[in-house]
């Protein structure tokens, strides 16, 4: 064994040397002629439509920017990675984008739990990261390089609790939250607190875990508690199954939820079980606002007539916010991009006016939608 190792040693050394050399290649070369931005999102898997929509829209925005001459005199190259909706994958691809592709900034992830994973990596490498749609407050609390283009759950939860009390006129709410999703527990906590503060009563507080498919046990307990509304802050795959099973058990009260419902697949899987349910999201494609209509038209033209959902609108805005920051920074140095992102004020996006607050969260309005005759229908907009 030792003798064979001695024979192999030079070979191994030369291979290692070769790897090191190729690894250093781009660094020693001339200044790259494109600016690389990393985009990581769940494009496939359980939450696949989130990343699919947001990545499509981000790409649309980047192509528009490139057609208009790019930024800082260079074209932008979008490097896309798929997290496959799997825990653990976000950190891996974020690290790959930063160390191997050497992106100057990251756009992603689309959900809170995976954004938390990616944020830790981005902060450690001091690479600016802008999540289009992660609403849990802890994401941007990770560090000063982490930003978001959407509102946060304390706002969204309060909007929903107030909506339930004032518009739906209900006093008895049941909760069904996922224990393994930072988004779900966070939004559930805010709703519970606000609803109680407004004089409401939480009659049942049930839990499930990501990937569960059988919710009949929890729903049976919920039915026995006789609620007037069922609050389900979860992602669309689970919400659709929950709605179907709730209707099968004879629960007829409306379901209420957050922006995790935002996907056409929700109605595909749930069928008519979602009729008359309400949820909050980032924008409505039905809005007459010319800026929104222009975006909807561009998106539909490019992606076989699919109507852009809230995730698409945020992905589009995130790309423009990021490029705007790079332009104002006048450089691709991470620290300068970070400072420019933090200084984003009165940015006029598809999802409304965006002001970056001191905690690096965007302060902006929420839209409430309902489902009527198998279609998402606009109800109202709530300003912060």
């Amino acid at each position, binding site marked *: 064994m030792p003798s064979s190792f001695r024979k192999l040693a030079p070979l191994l050394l030369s291979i290692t040397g070769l790897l090191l050399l190729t690894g250093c290649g781009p660094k020693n070369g001339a200044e790259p002629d494109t600016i690389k931005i990393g985009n990581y999102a769940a494009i496939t*898997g359980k939450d696949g439509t989130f990343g699919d929509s947001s990545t499509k829209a981000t790409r649309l925005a980047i192509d528009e920017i490139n057609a208009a001459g790019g930024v800082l005199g260079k074209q932008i190259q979008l490097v896309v990675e798929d997290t496959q*909706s799997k825990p653990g994958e976000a950190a891996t691809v974020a690290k790959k984008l930063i160390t191997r592709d050497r992106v100057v900034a990251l756009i992603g992830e689309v959900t809170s739990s995976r954004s938390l994973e990616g944020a830790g990596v981005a902060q450690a490498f001091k690479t600016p990261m802008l999540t289009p749609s992660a609403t849990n407050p802890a994401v941007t609390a990770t560090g000063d390089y982490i930003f978001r283009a959407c509102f946060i759950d304390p706002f969204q939860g309060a909007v929903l609790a107030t909506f339930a009390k004032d518009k739906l006129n209900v006093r008895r709410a049941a909760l069904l939250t996922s224990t393994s999703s930072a988004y779900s527990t966070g939004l559930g906590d805010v709703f519970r607190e606000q609803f109680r503060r407004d004089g409401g009563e939480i009659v049942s507080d049930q839990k499930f875990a990501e990937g569960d498919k059988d919710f009949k046990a929890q729903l049976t307990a919920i039915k026995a508690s006789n609620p007037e509304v069922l609050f389900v802050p979860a992602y669309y795959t689970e919400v659709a199954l929950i709605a179907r099973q709730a209707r099968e058990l004879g629960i007829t009260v409306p379901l209420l939820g957050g922006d995790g419902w935002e996907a056409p697949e929700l109605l595909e899987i749930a069928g008519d079980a979602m009729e008359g349910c309400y949820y909050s999201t980032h924008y409505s494609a039905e809005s007459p606002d010319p800026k929104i209509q222009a975006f909807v038209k561009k998106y539909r033209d490019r992606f076989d007539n699919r109507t852009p959902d809230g995730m698409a609108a945020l992905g589009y805005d995130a790309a423009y916010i990021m490029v705007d920051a790079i332009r104002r920074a006048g450089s691709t140095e991470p620290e300068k991009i970070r400072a420019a992102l933090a200084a984003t004020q009165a940015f006029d996006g598809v999802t409304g006016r965006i002001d970056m607050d001191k905690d690096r969260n965007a302060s902006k309005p929420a839209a409430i939608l309902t489902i009527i005759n198998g279609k998402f229908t606009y109800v109202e907009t709530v300003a912060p």
Partner: protein
Amino acid sequence: MTEFFQQLINGLSLGAIYALLALGYTMVYGILRFINFAHADVFMVGSFVGYYAARHIPAGTIWGGLIVLLVAMIACAVLGMAIERFAYRPLRGAPTLNVLITAIGMSLLLEYGVQLLFGSTPRNFPAVFPSSQVQLGDLTVSSNQLIVIGVAAVLLGGLQRIVFHTRLGAAMRAVSLNPRAAQLVGINLNTVIAFTFALGSALAGAGGVLYALNYPSIDPFMGVMPGLKAFVAAILGGIGNLPGAALGALILGGAETVVGGSAYSTYKDAIAFGLLIVIMLFRPAGLLGRFTAEKV
């Protein structure tokens, strides 16, 4: 009280699916003394076959539903026999550990193979049986739950008949008791083992369709959790013992549902599995293990 009975029905329909799956684990163990970890993925393939078969039949009819069920069962039986022929038979006589690792490899191959072919995005399983809600006093039972319980009962009855009242069943029991002696009296070992895999996989295929019917979102990794639970149910009932596997599955389904509907729903799986540990402490061979003479 209504709530309790409602939970009982929920638990029964969940347990019935676990039972269909658990029987496959227990039959293969009874004959070959190893755990076929790819079994849970045969279950997943069953629901995918059902998904594609459902496109060619009129939706929402009893006959259409039964045809989908049958197609999935046949496809899974063939898959089960193929897995045995190409992955496990070449290793017969090798240490059990080798076969076990092959089984894990087979499981991953099926999961990622299906992901490669069909993608990992969850699909919406169509309503192949007519669906409605049945009111029994205060209880609301969905027709799907009744179909699951009914189909599972018929299949389990059929299995019992095959194993105890046919020549092939007698051969299976003989191989289970002593493979070498069985060969000496003229039993073709390969036929019996292939038949066992076909039988177990067909049940898993049926389980896959029934599961997808109740929880209509299917993906390549949907078999992992039900597979784990069915495996535990088989051990709980006494591995190698047919009625034991069914009993273990019903207990597990019931425990999971009762805890899931209580204030401790976060700990649903932890409490269900904790209960199993307690049972195994007092009955290490499983509830019905060792004490019944017939092992298959």
